[in-house]
């Protein structure tokens, strides 16, 4: 092959290769109890359409079987894999590697903040789950006639009468991934705060019940030094939430409900 043709061929091959796969570097947070935490760098090759979780799995697959991380569904419905990529909270299962590639082609992967660390990317999410349980959050809403604040009948073109009688199951928006607790500056300073996810769960439960005893219990939990009043309106929870739960809005709505109860106006 002549020099010029060969050069062109190599360029073409390189071009095709970049369409197929990336060579990237992962700076991974590594930690074991009793040992010093540190970063370790791994070179991996991932397909063009890879998400960050694919890259993490490559590290586990090709470099270090001791890597501790969590995942299950790979499509943002289980909420187990949340980590920080380049300092920001994401679900790596739906975060394209491409979005993070700058000139350096390196990604820094760290565990969520504001939880106790177990090892590597693994944190203890028990405090989050305990709060959700206290709020009484269930996985599905048993009967629902409204979706995003609009009656389902009008949104779906159904007969309102029939919708009233048909039980409609809907999954809760919150997937208990812990991202909002990691992004919340108040949570960063104090572990006593009930936290954005927990307060959003309280609001969600409040909307579902008309039982005065249960409503009073939920509002008592929210109306506390460490409840809705501890929030200082950074709105980082709503900004980072991958599921549109909008915890900050839930906190503001709970404040209305608490003030309404206290001063006897509204509902």
């Amino acid at each position, binding site marked *: 092959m002549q020099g010029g043709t060969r050069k062109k061929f190599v360029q073409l091959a390189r071009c095709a290769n970049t369409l197929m796969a990336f060579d990237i570097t992962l700076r991974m947070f590594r930690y074991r109890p009793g040992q010093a935490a540190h970063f370790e760098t791994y070179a991996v090759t991932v397909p063009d359409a890879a998400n960050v979780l694919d890259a993490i799995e490559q590290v586990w697959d090709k470099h270090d079987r001791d890597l501790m991380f969590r995942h299950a569904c790979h499509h943002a419905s289980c909420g187990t894999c949340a980590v920080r990529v380049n300092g920001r909270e994401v679900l790596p299962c739906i975060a394209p590697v491409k979005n993070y590639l700058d000139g350096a082609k390196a990604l820094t992967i760290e565990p969520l903040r504001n939880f106790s660390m177990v090892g590597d990317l693994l944190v203890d999410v028990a405090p989050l789950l305990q709060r959700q349980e206290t709020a009484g959050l269930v996985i599905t809403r048993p009967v629902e006639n409204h979706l995003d604040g609009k009656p389902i009948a009008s949104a779906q073109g159904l007969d309102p009468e029939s919708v009233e009688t048909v039980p409609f199951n809907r999954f809760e928006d919150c997937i208990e991934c812990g991202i909002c607790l990691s992004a919340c500056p108040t949570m960063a300073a104090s*572990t006593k705060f009930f936290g954005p996810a927990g307060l959003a769960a309280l609001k969600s439960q409040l909307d579902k019940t008309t039982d005065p005893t249960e409503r009073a219990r939920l509002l008592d*939990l929210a109306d506390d030094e460490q409840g809705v009043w501890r929030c200082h309106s950074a709105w980082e929870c709503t900004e980072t939430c991958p599921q549109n739960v909008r915890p900050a809005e839930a906190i503001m709505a709970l404040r209305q409900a608490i003030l309404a109860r206290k001063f006897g106006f509204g509902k």
Partner: protein
Amino acid sequence: MNPKRSTLGWFWQSVTGLALLLLLGVHFVAHHFIAAGGLRDFNQVMAYLSNPIIIALELGFLVSVTIHALLGVRSILFDLGLDARWEKNVTWALTALGALTLAYGVWLLYTILQTGSALAMWTR
């Protein structure tokens, strides 16, 4: 967590905050923008305080700013995740500091007015 303890700190923070937007506006503009040279000399201060509405506004400002500032300090300290005993201590200490601040402010205003009228008598 103590669900029985009602918490209106945030509500009062908002109310005093709104009051401060108005009162601090008046206070700052009156003392630093309207006054010639950006700050009143003693006789100008006395002339300013001769208006009872101004005295009422300055007292309102003193009360609002003290409540707002100390509720804020309490909030900042509580954010550090104090245990229950320290939360109680902080609340008591700041309540005492607030009372002292208000007492000092009122004493100061009274003394300044006394000084002013005494000097006025003397120079007349």
